């Protein structure tokens, strides 16, 4: 009996996506590193030697211990400690988790907004298009970071520091999500403009389908590949935005460190020789963003037929 209706796994195994992935060493390494980092971050409560959120486990006497191998290091803290005596490995694991959460959350939010507005603008055209895209243009003419700083500062001022600390993750997701939606909206709109001229859209209209159904069920799936590519890159961007905001003191509080606030907390001590508090989280951030961008590049090469390399 021939397997006519191939299972999903078989389809995936035969697909161009898997084929090109297997032949691309950079993509494989990037994915392995990325998955390892995500796994480590989300298993932080299990993997981390100490809980940086638990003040009882912190001893100020352990502050600013260097990483293993340097004079004065403590074997209990392989990556050293920060100025408050927290184990740097634990804080990095927890911090990566926070950064990833904000990165993914913000991208989900900006994708929702971007897809919705992009579809509406592209498909309905006319006045809707003009209004939505002018809003996007206005927003793009400010730097993303500036929008985020203004919104963040307003929130921080109106909620107060303590309250802000509790809801900081959600606020950052909201801020970065709202600040970056025009990127995705423009991409979606451009592909919708190309798709809506195709005959299958006419055919769908002739079948008597309503506008929402045509937009979301027929056109949206055909615009997913550019959305995937840009969303991947946007995760990296969101993580960087979060780090930048935290570095400026508008992001995660030091009690719930993200990679950005870790870098910032170490920055004050870098002149006094404790370089590791800044450098190690910085390296983790760079590697994380790099592998996500490399994966995004690979995805773009695979999903964009015009870039096929013989």
């Amino acid at each position, binding site marked *: 009996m021939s397997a*006519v*209706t191939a299972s999903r796994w078989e389809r995936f195994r035969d697909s161009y996506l898997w084929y090109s992935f297997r032949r691309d060493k950079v993509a494989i390494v990037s994915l392995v590193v990325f998955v390892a980092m995500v796994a480590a971050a989300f298993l932080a409560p299990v993997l981390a030697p100490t809980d940086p959120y638990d003040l009882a486990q912190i001893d100020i006497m352990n502050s600013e211990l260097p990483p293993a191998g340097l004079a004065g290091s403590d074997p209990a803290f392989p990556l050293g400690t920060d100025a408050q005596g927290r184990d740097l490995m634990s804080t990095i694991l927890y911090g990566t988790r926070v950064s990833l959460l904000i990165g993914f959350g913000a991208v989900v939010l900006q994708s929702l907004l971007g897809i919705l507005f992009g579809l509406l603008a592209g498909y309905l055209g006319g006045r809707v298009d003009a209004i939505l895209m002018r809003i996007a243009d206005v927003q793009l003419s400010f730097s993303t970071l500036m929008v985020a700083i203004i919104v963040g500062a307003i929130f921080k001022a109106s909620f107060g520091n303590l309250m802000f600390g509790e809801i900081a993750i959600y606020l950052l997701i909201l801020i970065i999500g709202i600040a970056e939606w025009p990127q995705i909206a423009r991409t979606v709109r451009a592909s919708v403009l190309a798709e809506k001229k*195709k*005959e*299958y859209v*006419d*055919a*769908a*209209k*002739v*079948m*008597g*389908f*309503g506008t929402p*159904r045509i937009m979301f*069920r*027929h056109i949206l*799936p*055909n615009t*997913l590949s550019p959305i995937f590519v840009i969303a991947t890159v946007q995760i990296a961007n969101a993580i960087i935005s979060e780090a930048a905001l935290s570095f400026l003191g508008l992001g995660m509080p030091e009690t719930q460190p993200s990679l950005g606030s870790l870098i910032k907390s170490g920055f004050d001590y870098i002149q006094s020789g404790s370089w590791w508090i800044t450098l190690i989280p910085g390296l983790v951030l760079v590697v994380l963003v790099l592998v996500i961008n490399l994966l995004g590049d690979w995805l773009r090469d695979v999903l964009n037929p015009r870039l096929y390399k013989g």
Partner: protein
Amino acid sequence: MALLDVKDLDVRFAVRGGDLQALRKISFSLDKGERLGLVGESGAGKSVAAFSILNLIAKPGYIAGGQILFEGQDLAAMSDKQLRKIRGNRIAMIFQDPMMTLNPVLTIGTQMVEALKAHRRISTRDARAIALKKLQMVQIPSPDKRLDQYPHELSGGMRQRVIIAIALLLDPEIIIADEPTTALDVTIQAEIMALLLELCEQENVALMLITHDLGVVSQVTQRMLVMYSGRIIEQGPTREIINDPQHPYTQGLINALPQMGEPGARLYQIPGSMPSLSRVPSGCPFNPRCPFATDQCRTSMPNYVHSGNVDVACYEVAKLIEQEQSLQEEDR
């Protein structure tokens, strides 16, 4: 009463500096189970006519006047919601390019089930059963497999069969086929045309066939319309028009066909080309290319005259008919 009765349909495109008239008050009707051919050059307004029937003219086009009576209801005056109940359900449409009309990211089964569910309260299981039945009707090999396949996994001919199956899915009264075989291989063309003809006869569906191919029209349709520059210049029973074309344009079209009896002979060409919508000449739109054009043709648009069962819009034909009648009277 005819199933579909188009009266003085006037379709225009709003462009900078005024409207372009794409359909100049065309009128025709289509009976239940009848097969009507619509021929003309590219740009004559055939596809515009097809889309206007479903009131689906895309902006900047709009219906400026006239009626499209489907079972007595005017489609031109209907709300979008009412129209959606008719589109696909009562009047289906088949497009030119089977490569483009199926959504590339949805399986055949999904697309068929979706179409059924949009118009009927029906379970997915029942919808799949109907879809399978229709795929069997279009004689596609191993129809049960096709439901779970994507359009790119099928050949052009198979896709056009699927599209015909989708058109028949909701048992429509009318199928509008806009050059259904143009994008296919010549051998497949004949198969698909035969299939479409057979299914329309079997299901008693009215077919409006839009095509360049006079051969197909003469084989498949019972009546035909000849369009030129947005006007119907000749309409009547297909056999009469093909055997004895009245309008100089129709004569030119038929003379341009290669004849079996005279191999190697040079084909006739109608001099010039059809004017674009923005510069349609005054009077009869065909007058600059017409060998019989007179001053009258250049100034005013001819009305329809009856020649046998055929309606023709031509002064020359009208004159010939008058002469014939006066000769007959003299004989008496």
